[in-house]
């Protein structure tokens, strides 16, 4: 039945047939389509403001994309297993704040405090979702509220110790070395490589896909699903805690709504990157491109010099269009 479309259709239908072929190509090479989209965005910026796209600009984009990319790594891992984590923004904020209030003694200890938040919330999420089979959405919503509330109470107890961001965290979140390589790339790149390789070549990675694809089949083949999910949610929260440290290094001020703005992008980057929210399909490569696209989009909106609310509306609208296009293309 692979008759060429133009031979059976009248001349006028040649254009739609061509469009169908392009859609078919995009469908086959979605990763390439994403990269093309990223390049189109960058091209759009260069056309709108010639001379913007320079090595420094590119290094800035990577600098700003890193925390989102790290958050998206965790979100990818839980979505591949058919879940979602809505507590990542609260965890990132709490991690940054706790680190900043413990930074007076030792920098290394302070970082451990931050990561401990991730470990604790991840553990609670994991126990609820993996062992007690609570829906991930409700569970992470609840733990997000708990984390945020606890942080508010904690911050009022800690009025005496002003949060202070240590110099090496500032360097991590805003510094560059070797003629423009952002320092946070040295955190993001190893995480990215570990996640990319881990998903493809380790038993744990394959199990995430398997659990997300068909939970019952996994159960019947003897997979201890609860162990997989528990590890999954702990990893996600740890990544969120690490991302919080990068964010606070960039802003140099730990406040209560530090990472709130990252919740939507962390989900959107993964969805645009082609990971199915129902699990079993996708990968971290797409999420990386998704995070870069969203960061470039942000930069484009900043260039437009529009008021903040307008930017927010446009940002959301573009995400909806991209997510729709992607879902329509791959379904």
């Amino acid at each position, binding site marked *: 039945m692979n008759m060429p479309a133009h031979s059976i259709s009248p001349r006028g239908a040649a254009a739609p047939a061509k469009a169908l072929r392009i859609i078919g190509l995009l469908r086959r090479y979605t990763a390439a389509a994403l990269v093309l989209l990223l390049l189109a965005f960058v091209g759009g910026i260069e056309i709108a403001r010639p001379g913007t796209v320079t090595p420094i600009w590119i290094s800035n984009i990577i600098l700003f994309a890193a925390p989102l990319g790290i958050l998206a790594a965790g979100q990818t891992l839980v979505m591949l297993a058919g879940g979602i984590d809505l507590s990542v923004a609260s965890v990132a904020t709490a991690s940054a704040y706790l680190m900043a209030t413990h930074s007076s003694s030792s920098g290394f200890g302070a970082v451990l405090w931050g990561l401990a938040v991730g470990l604790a919330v991840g553990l609670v999420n994991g126990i609820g979702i993996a062992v*007690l089979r609570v829906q991930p959405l409700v569970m992470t*919503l609840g733990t997000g509220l708990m984390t*945020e509330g606890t942080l508010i109470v904690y911050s009022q107890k800690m009025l005496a110790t002003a949060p202070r961001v240590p110099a090496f965290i500032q360097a991590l979140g805003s510094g560059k070395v070797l003629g423009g390589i952002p320092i946070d790339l040295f955190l993001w790149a190893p995480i990215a490589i570990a996640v990319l390789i881990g998903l493809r070549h380790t038993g744990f990675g394959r199990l995430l896909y398997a659990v997300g694809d068909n939970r019952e089949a996994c159960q019947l083949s003897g997979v201890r699903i609860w162990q997989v999910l528990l590890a999954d949610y702990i990893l996600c929260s740890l990544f969120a805690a690490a991302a919080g440290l990068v964010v606070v290094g960039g802003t140099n001020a730990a406040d209560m709504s530090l990472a709130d703005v990252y919740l939507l992008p962390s989900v959107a980057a993964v969805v645009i990157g082609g990971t199915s929210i129902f699990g079993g399909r996708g990968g971290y490569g797409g999420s990386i491109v998704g995070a870069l696209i969203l960061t470039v989009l942000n930069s484009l909106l900043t260039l437009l010099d529009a008021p903040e*609310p307008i930017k*927010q509306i446009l940002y959301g609208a573009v995400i909806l269009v991209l997510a729709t296009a992607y*879902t329509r293309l791959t379904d």
Partner: protein
Amino acid sequence: MPALLVLALAVTVAIHPEFGSFDAQSLAMGAMPLAFAAAAQTVVVISGGIDLSVGSMMAVSNVLAAVSMEDASFGQSLALAAAIVLAGALAGAINGLIVVFSRVPDVVVTLTTGFIWGGVALLLLEKPGGGAPEQFLALGAGTLFTPWLSGALVLLAAAVAIIWIPVQQSRLGLLLYAVGSDRASALRSGVNVGLTRFLAYVLGGLFSAVGGIGLIMTTGIGSPLAGVYYTLSGLAAAVLGGVSLAGGRGGIVGPVLAAYVLTLIPTDLIFLNIDPNFGQVIQGTLIVLVVMVGGLATLLRGRKR
């Protein structure tokens, strides 16, 4: 849920024996917007969806009211309120259309539209402000007949009855539950699944808009940033009120009562001289505990079999 509310009320009276009509009224006022947020979420969740834009739609209708009613008369305000409720239904319709036609998962769609509505609210009103005629505010902030019967309570009961009871009694109510409990079976039985889900979001938008107007009645001003709180707490109230996120199960009374319980928590903490900021911690813990106990119960039942 009624038992939990009675318990929460009893605890409140026990630790604060002079609980009087004033406290009853402030409870009714404080809980009213949250109850509407819970109702909005409940309708959508029953149909098997989720709406993370409820709070932002409330914020939009709230600031619309605050901006347009500031210099309006009482009569004009009533007309404006009706128009804003319709606008809310329209916002819900947009959510519904995108969810049904884009096939993007509802969580992602409403998370994003919530972000967009949040921008719209900020665009209309940059910082808390605006207002409405006293007489209009009194509909929610005043009392009827006795100081115990607050306008907020009457308004809530009336709005829920006017919107929900006809829906629940009609074919649409049945379809909402059918689509929510098993979409595939509903489709095979000839139900127009897309239309039903769309209408659930319209109802959600409607309730959100009423909630936004309720919010201006109880606070007197427009708050463009109210969104996040009402989305999360509304969903919390729905879950605590016995609505299953899997869809198809639960009613609207449970979530509304849960909204009162959630509002009582910080009040009780103040009476107990505990930092009211613990309220959010307790709220989160309560959700987590309720769903975990639910999960544990299912798990144990599974073991016995």
